[in-house]
């Protein structure tokens, strides 16, 4: 009867920002990104991609509660970089990787249909 709508799990409510950014008050070059209506799918790939960046000292994500549909990504970088820069770069790199993957898969499909 009073069940919340199922789409609340993946539709960002009006007036809410998809990503919000909060600097750490005590540590320089550390920040938390709160991403609304995302979960492990995005959280884990971002975390693993951030780990590939040598300027990232720490990167982690958490899903605070299964009924709070948001993740928090925390990044700490060296002074050569910034959390925002590392975050943006990781998204760009993942995007590039997926572009490549798409092309590779399509090329394989073409090859496969020709060979068999």
């Amino acid at each position, binding site marked *: 009867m009073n069940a919340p709508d199922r789409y609340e799990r993946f539709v960002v409510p009006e007036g809410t920002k998809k*990503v919000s*950014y909060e600097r750490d008050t005590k540590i320089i070059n550390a920040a938390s990104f709160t991403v609304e209506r*995302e979960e492990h799918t995005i959280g884990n790939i971002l975390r*693993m991609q951030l780990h590939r960046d040598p300027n990232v000292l720490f990167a982690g994500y958490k899903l605070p509660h299964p009924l709070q549909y948001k993740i928090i990504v925390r990044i700490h970088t060296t002074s050569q970089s910034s959390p925002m820069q590392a975050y943006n770069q990781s998204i760009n790199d993942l995007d590039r*990787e997926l572009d490549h*993957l798409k092309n590779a898969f*399509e090329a394989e*499909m073409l090859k496969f249909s020709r060979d068999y």
Partner: protein
Amino acid sequence: MEGASYARMPRVKIRELKDDYAKFELRDTDASIANALRRVMIAEVPTIAIDLVEIEVNSSVLNDEFIAHRLGLIPLTSERAMSMRFSRDCDACDGDGQCEFCSVEFHLRVKCMTDQTLDVSSKDLYSSDHSVVPVDFSDPAATDSSENRGVIIVKLRRGQELRLRAIARKGIGKDHAKWSPAATVTFMYEPEIHINEDLMETLTLEEKREWVDSSPTRVFDIDPVTQQVMVVDSEAYSYDDEVIKKAEAMGKPGLVEIIAKQDSFIFTVESTGAIKASQLVLNAIEILKQKLDAVRLSEDTVEADDQFGELGAHMRGG
């Protein structure tokens, strides 16, 4: 700072490709990407499924909501889904099903007039859009087409009738499993098996046979000519550790070493028929790209930080 890129260039090799089944190798990436793809294929690639049912007459043995639920679970051909709108953000209609951008209408009218039980199936659903129809599961090789009916919805006896209007919409598996295009999507780490040949040769043929048979799946076998143990199917290995335990129990630890390669995956994708398995993979990549794009920082967030950043730099004495 542009130029430094930590992007990987994954490799793909397709092993098997059918309309509703795909098996492929994915290399040079990590488990996070493999798992993200799997999760997106199951829960976030859109399809079309019946979502609203208006029943006019139902004198069958099943109640209205039972039939509505069964209708929802029927896979519909969903090649159109990627370019369709979700009815919740369609501005051309109010979601009542009269809109070509976000919905497809179906009609079903069946009445049993004979003494024989009448099967009402997905073949009795008439679609308003020829590109969105119940999936045809009939075997193209079978010559006898009369026996190939669709998914059975309900059975009627003499005098019983079912008449309804249904509206199919675009949706994702996260909302309801009826929208999931995936029957199963799995991936496994590719195993790398090294047999210590020297240690293996200290075993008698009988011991070798015993060791080979200790694996629950047929991973190893004995060459009938050389009587050497060989790997016949490394991918049959289910990471059960049985052969390793057996080697230890036989007093030969290190007889075999099995490593799960951390950057190689073997994917198995089975589709419900709503979209082709190959298209499912491609759509999943596309959806994942869209999701990443959505989590980019917005301009105002960056600007707000720039101001705050300068202030912060001053405060830190910079």
